[in-house]
């Protein structure tokens, strides 16, 4: 464990809404980033979910089939 003492201004900066005990705050710029990238993540997740759940298993099955087919062919 490491201990640090970091000096900050006495009034601090509360750039977001009060989250807890007036000391821990949301970061307003971060909330804006989350908002702006929400559609991006939705689209990406849909695309990757399709690849992960549909395309990849299909490719795996085709690969296995090809291997057995080649073994059968050259046997």
């Amino acid at each position, binding site marked *: 464990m*490491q201990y640090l003492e970091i000096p*900050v*201004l006495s009034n601090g900066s509360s750039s977001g809404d009060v989250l807890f005990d007036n000391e821990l705050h949301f970061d307003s*710029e971060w909330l804006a980033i989350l908002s702006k990238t929400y559609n991006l993540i939705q689209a990406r997740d849909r695309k990757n979910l399709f690849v992960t759940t549909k395309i990849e298993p299909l490719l795996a099955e085709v690969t296995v089939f090809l291997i057995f087919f080649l073994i059968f062919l050259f046997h």
Partner: protein
Amino acid sequence: MQRTVNIAVQGCSHGELDTIYQSIRDTECRTGKKLDLLLLCGDLQCVRDAFDLQCVAVPPKYRKLNTFHQYVTGEKQSPVMTVFVGGNHEASNILQSLYLGGFVAPNIYFLGFAGVINFKGLRIAGVSGIYNDRHYHCGHYETPPYSEDALRSVYHLREIEALRLEFLKFSSKPVDIFLSHDWPQNIWNYGKKEELLRIKPYFQEDIASGKLGSPPLNRLLMTLQPSFWFCAHLHVKFPAVVPHSTGSSESKTTRFLALDKVIPGRYFHSWSSRFRDFVLIPPIILGDLCNI
């Protein structure tokens, strides 16, 4: 006018919350200083019940309930505001339900898979999980109960989290502290690499093959240029100072520190002797932090 924020940083926790909090109480008694914030760099293992245990990626013999559930029920109280990021040994079902961050117990806040908060004027950013190129470009498709594969892929860092954090480079306010579980790739070039390889000689092969560390985190380190970067994961203490070229005459540096886990014989050998291994840094007057 300035004041000081006292912060303690812990590497991997591995369910040892009681030990960590007791150590903090002891340090407060010893130094007479009140701690404001505790930062945990992952592997907290916030397990509440038997189902949560099944969502932790550890061999069955290491599956222990520990005492986190007592902090959830209120049987025990966290003595200090605790902020943590996820590692690779977590109750992933809990963390996944708090994707954007939230309290897992009173006074114990999860930063989310990627998140930024402000604490007493300090801007703290963090990212959970570890890097694996196989899942980096995927979405979060895992749902509990996890399959053997999903149990591991669920904590792998995704591109979207790194991308979102990278947008902070356009922010008006710099990041003061960055928390991660994994190490940024190439960080060993900014510290005593020989010493690191002496303690962990088997890192040599991984460094040479580029398997050690996280490339996206390295990019975030260079882009966001936080004043401090803390991480854990590799169970070795490793400090480094990363200089950044800002283009102006003022030079900026990131003070990097990777920390060990709570383990007898190292940092937590005994209550009386463990303070020898703690470094109580005197008030750090860093130019950029003074100007907050």
